[in-house]
């Protein structure tokens, strides 16, 4: 076998691994000066945590004193929104149709007025998601099914 083939074999076998090591080294250097690029320290608010199904972050924020009834800005794209919207975590959970998040929020202190509940119940009903509707019902404290126009929206 010619020397050229041998060199070609060595390059073929090891070049991707060498590139990988260089990238990893670069990432570690970057991490030591400007934060780890693979583990960015992204700060979410409660509504964004709900919108991204980050239940642990929701719990952390609520434990840290954030108000689960508050309105928080949600960046575009997280809840099918084209522009930034200011919504509650509960609205975010309903927007992405996650019954377990709705349960968690009611358990963690979300309280609704009759009008707020009726609007959210109507939005949930439009999803035809039985689990989600049942979860929202738990926050209605015995209120009857509201009369929905079908035009209720989250924002």
């Amino acid at each position, binding site marked *: 076998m010619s020397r050229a083939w041998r060199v070609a074999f060595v390059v073929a*076998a*090891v070049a991707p691994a060498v590139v990988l090591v260089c990238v990893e080294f670069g990432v570690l250097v970057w991490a030591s000066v400007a934060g780890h690029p693979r583990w960015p320290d992204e700060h979410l608010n409660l509504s964004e945590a709900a919108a991204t199904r980050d239940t642990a972050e929701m719990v952390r924020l609520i434990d840290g004193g954030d108000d689960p009834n508050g309105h928080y800005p949600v960046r575009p794209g997280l809840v099918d929104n084209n522009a930034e919207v200011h919504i509650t975590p509960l609205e975010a959970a309903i927007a992405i149709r996650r019954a377990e998040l709705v349960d968690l929020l009611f358990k963690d202190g979300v309280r609704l007025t009759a009008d707020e509940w009726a609007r959210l119940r109507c939005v949930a009903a439009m999803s035809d998601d039985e689990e989600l509707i049942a979860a929202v019902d738990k926050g209605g404290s015995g209120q009857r099914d509201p009369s929905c126009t079908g035009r209720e929206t989250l924002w």
Partner: protein
Amino acid sequence: MFLAFAYDLTRLPVQVHDSLGDIQDARLAPSVWGAFLAPLHQEGYLRPLKAAQIRLVFDLSRGHYAFAYRAVHLLLFGLTVWAFTWVMRVRTWADAAAAGFALTVLLGLHTFSNLLREAYPINHFLEIVLFSLVALGLAQSAPRLRNDVLVLVLFTAGALVIESGLLIWVVVVAARLSGMKGISLRGIALLTLLLGAYLGLRFLVFSNGIPLITERSTGYFFRVLEQDDQVRLFGSRTWPLYAYNIAASMLSVLFSEPRAGQLVATAQLLDGRVQPWTIVALASSLATTLLVLVAAVHASRSRSARDDGDRLFVVFGIVLVANAVLSFAYAKGDIVSVAGAFYALAAYAAVRRILAVGVTGSLVSAAVVFGLLVVASTGWALRTTGLHYSLRYQAFKVRNDWVSDVDPKWLEEPGARAVSEQLRRAAVEKRVLAPRFYPRWEERWFEE
């Protein structure tokens, strides 16, 4: 490379599933020795040292449970990378190039990535991979009484941690059969006596038996068979399932398909939705397995004296079969992780031989080998990079499990509650970016 993944491991919380219960059980034992004695009569399993280790780290942690268990994981990972590098016995530039390739095979193979992803209190599968590599290293060394003694200790510890520990015996015997003389025949005889003693304890003294098929779900062709499904399909005639699991385990190491018994890539192909990561996994494994096969056949026909590198082919073949047989009860990546590590060693031996000896024959043969090397090395580098994605995804999942999946029984009694709360707090306080923010291409190119 170690530092890159070590950082990921520091961000991964101790998991809830298959962990919290073990920690709480160990806590309830009166002492480390009590934790060792408690599971001796457990049906289907004999793993007293697993419980004792969990209790020992629990006691030594002085209340910093999450930190202590994660530190053990990190230590095991570091030692495993060291042991893997040690047994490659790198001496030449060709060896070094092949070793670089082999390290990406080790880290990129799904059987190993499972060992990093699964943040048990102590990842006992990783422990067995480490012990097996050290046993191989001792077998490669010059014969000494110390080697015999160490390998007896490793086997005893490994076998009492988890059933995969029996593979240490297989590794030692396979190494001897391949021509490695670091463990004496007397040592192997003693090791075999220990194996006999283990079987006697397991089947005659403690009557642990073997795991029932009703204990775990397992992949079977295109679906996952739950415990009830297994009973309904196989009843008392379990051998077809066992044969499937053995075959699936072997193929999984060689071709990265099936995964945990399930034909994931084939299902994607039939659906017409093959993901890039699937192609990368299949292509890299297929290319590497072909390289191993070609190099092993070449080595067996070669007239020149075989060295330890060439002997790795024999050791891998025997370990692969034994490890697959050991996973008869259910197919899971972790169980064949020892075979996976030895597959990476066989890949090392193959590439080393190709680089050192070259390819005899036509230009076409050389071009084919070159093509296989390109596909394999590129694929494994990609899979290794994907391990970061997989660990980040797992960290997010595990962190959220601490909110939703903690068994209420571990929150009742004050002692249990304090431990659960401490572990939960440690998990929740570590912020992890939600997968929603990952670049879309990562989802297609990297495995979860």
